[in-house]
C-alpha cells in the first residue's frame, strides 16, 4: 500500500532523473521521508488552523479550561517520533553503507580537483576534463585535490564526496543509462567555484573503448601547437593566463613569447625557452614586475613543456617565422632549434 503511494509520487518532480544503481533506493528513501514530512506538516498545520478557528476569542463565551498536562499524551508524542526516527536512521544507514562499500574490481579513475576545474585520469594514463565511463560497469573514483577542498557531485548518480587535500576520499557508482550528466563542485573553493563544472559521459563499453583509443592516438601524434593548447586547457593554465590579452592573475599568453619584460629584481629578461621552462618548474625564481608570485610549480614532462612553448609561439606576434616549428609530426622530439639571439638574459 505504501509502495502504491510511493509509486504514485512522481520522483522527477523533486530529484532529477536517476541514472545509477543506487539512485532507485535513494529516491525511494527520499520519498518515504517526504511523505512522513508531509503527513506531520499537514497534521500540525490543520490542527493549528482548526484550533485558531474553533477556539478564537468570542466576547461572552466562557470556556472551562482544559487540562494542563497529560503524561499519556506526552509519552505518545515522544515515543511515536522516536520510533519513526529510529526507522529512518536504520534505513538511511543501511542504504548509506551500500553507497560506501564498493564492489570489487571496479574500473578506477582518479579525479583531480584544482582551482577551478576537474581533470580525470584513466588507468591508460589519459587525462581529460570531462568524465567518460562505460555503462553498467562499477566505477571507483579516487578523489584528490591540488589545492583546496572541492566536492565532486553528480546529481543523476546521487553521489557526492568532498575532495580533501591530504586525504584520499573516494566514491563509486555504476551508471545504468547512456547519456550526459552534470558534474558540479559543491564545496566553496574560491572565485570561480561556480564554473567548476563538467560533464559525465556514459556510453556503451564499445563506444568507451573507441573513445579511449582515439584519445590515446590523438595525444600521441598531436601537432605540438594543438597539444600545447590541449595542455593549456587540461593543466589549468587557463585559470590565470588568457589568450585574448586580458590580464588575470598571470600575464596573458597573447604576444607574450619573445617579449622583453622587467623582473621584480630589476634586470630585463626575454621570454624564451629557458625562462619559460624555469617559470614552469620553479615559478618563484624570476617574477615579472607587477605580477603576484602566486603560481604553483608544475612538474611537466619535457615534451609537454616544449609543446606548451610551441603553443605560446603560435599566438605571439613577437616570434619570427624562424621560431616556429613545423606544426606537423609528433612533438616528442625536443625543441632544439632555438636561435641564439633571443636567448640571452640581458643584465641592466
Amino acid at each position, binding site marked *: 500500500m505504501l509502495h502504491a503511494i510511493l509509486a504514485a509520487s512522481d520522483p522527477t518532480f523533486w530529484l532529477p532523473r536517476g541514472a545509477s544503481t543506487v539512485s532507485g533506493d535513494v529516491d525511494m528513501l527520499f520519498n518515504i521521508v517526504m511523505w512522513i514530512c508531509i503527513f506531520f506538516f499537514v497534521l500540525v498545520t490543520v490542527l493549528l488552523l482548526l484550533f485558531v478557528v474553533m477556539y478564537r476569542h468570542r466576547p461572552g463565551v466562557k470556556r472551562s479550561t482544559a487540562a494542563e498536562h497529560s503524561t499519556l499524551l506526552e509519552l505518545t508524542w515522544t515515543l511515536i517520533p522516536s520510533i519513526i526516527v529510529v526507522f529512518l536512521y536504520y534505513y538511511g544507514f543501511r542504504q548509506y553503507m551500500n553507497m*560506501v562499500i*564498493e564492489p570489487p574490481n571496479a574500473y*578506477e579513475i*582518479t579525479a583531480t580537483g584544482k582551482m577551478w576545474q576537474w581533470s580525470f585520469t584513466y588507468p591508460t594514463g589519459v587525462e581529460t576534463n570531462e568524465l567518460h565511463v562505460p555503462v553498467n560497469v562499477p566505477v571507483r573514483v*579516487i578523489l*584528490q585535490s591540488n589545492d583546496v577542498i572541492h566536492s565532486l557531485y553528480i546529481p543523476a548518480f546521487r553521489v557526492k564526496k568532498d575532495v580533501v587535500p*591530504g*586525504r*584520499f576520499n*573516494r566514491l563509486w557508482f555504476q551508471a545504468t543509462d547512456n547519456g550526459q550528466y552534470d558534474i558540479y563542485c559543491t564545496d566553496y573553493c574560491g572565485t570561480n567555484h561556480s564554473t567548476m563544472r563538467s560533464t559525465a559521459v556514459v556510453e556503451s563499453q564499445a563506444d568507451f573503448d573507441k573513445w579511449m583509443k582515439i584519445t590515446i592516438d590523438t595525444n600521441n601524434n598531436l601537432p605540438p601547437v594543438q597539444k600545447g593548447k590541449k595542455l593549456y586547457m587540461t593543466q589549468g593554465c587557463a585559470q590565470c593566463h588568457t589568450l585574448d590579452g586580458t590580464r588575470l592573475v598571470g600575464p596573458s599568453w597573447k604576444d607574450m613569447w619573445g617579449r622583453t619584460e622587467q623582473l621584480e629584481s630589476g634586470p630585463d629578461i626575454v621570454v624564451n625557452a629557458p625562462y619559460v621552462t624555469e617559470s614552469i618548474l620553479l615559478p618563484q625564481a624570476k617574477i615579472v614586475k607587477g605580477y603576484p608570485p602566486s603560481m604553483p610549480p608544475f612538474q611537466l614532462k619535457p615534451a609537454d613543456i616544449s609543446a606548451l612553448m610551441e603553443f605560446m609561439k603560435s599566438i605571439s606576434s613577437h616570434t619570427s617565422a624562424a621560431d616556429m616549428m613545423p606544426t606537423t609530426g609528433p612533438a616528442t622530439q625536443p625543441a632544439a632549434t632555438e636561435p641564439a639571439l633571443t636567448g640571452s638574459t640581458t643584465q641592466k
Partner: protein
Amino acid sequence: MTTAAQASHDTDHDHDPGAVHAHIMPPRILLGVYGALVVLTVLTVAVAYLELGKLNIWAAMIIAVIKASLVVLYFMHLKYDNLFNGVVLITALIFVALFIAVTMMDTAEYKPNENQPGTRVMMTSQNGG
C-alpha cells in the same frame, strides 16, 4: 547554591547580614598540599626516565590529574565550596573529554604519510571510509 539563595532570601537572618561565610584554609593543609605537589613533580620527572612504553603517558597523566585535583580541592577551596561550582568544572572537563574522544575517532581517515595520491600504495591502505 541553594543555601546561598535561602540565606539571601530569608528575611530573618540569624546572623549578621554583613558577614560572608567562607572556609579559611589552615596553614597545615596549605603546606601539606604544597609538599605533595613538589614530591609529585619530582616523581613525574623521574617516571619519564623509565622505560614503560605506552604506560609512560598514562603514568604522567595520572600524576598530573592527582596534582590538579589537589590544587582544585584545597588551593581553590572546592572541597568546601558550593556543589554547583564543582559541577561547572566537571562539566567543562567532560565536554573537553568528549570533544577530544569524538575527534580522535576520525584520525584514522587522515593519511599524513602518503604523498603519491592515486597510486596502489595509497589505495590498499585506504578503506572505503
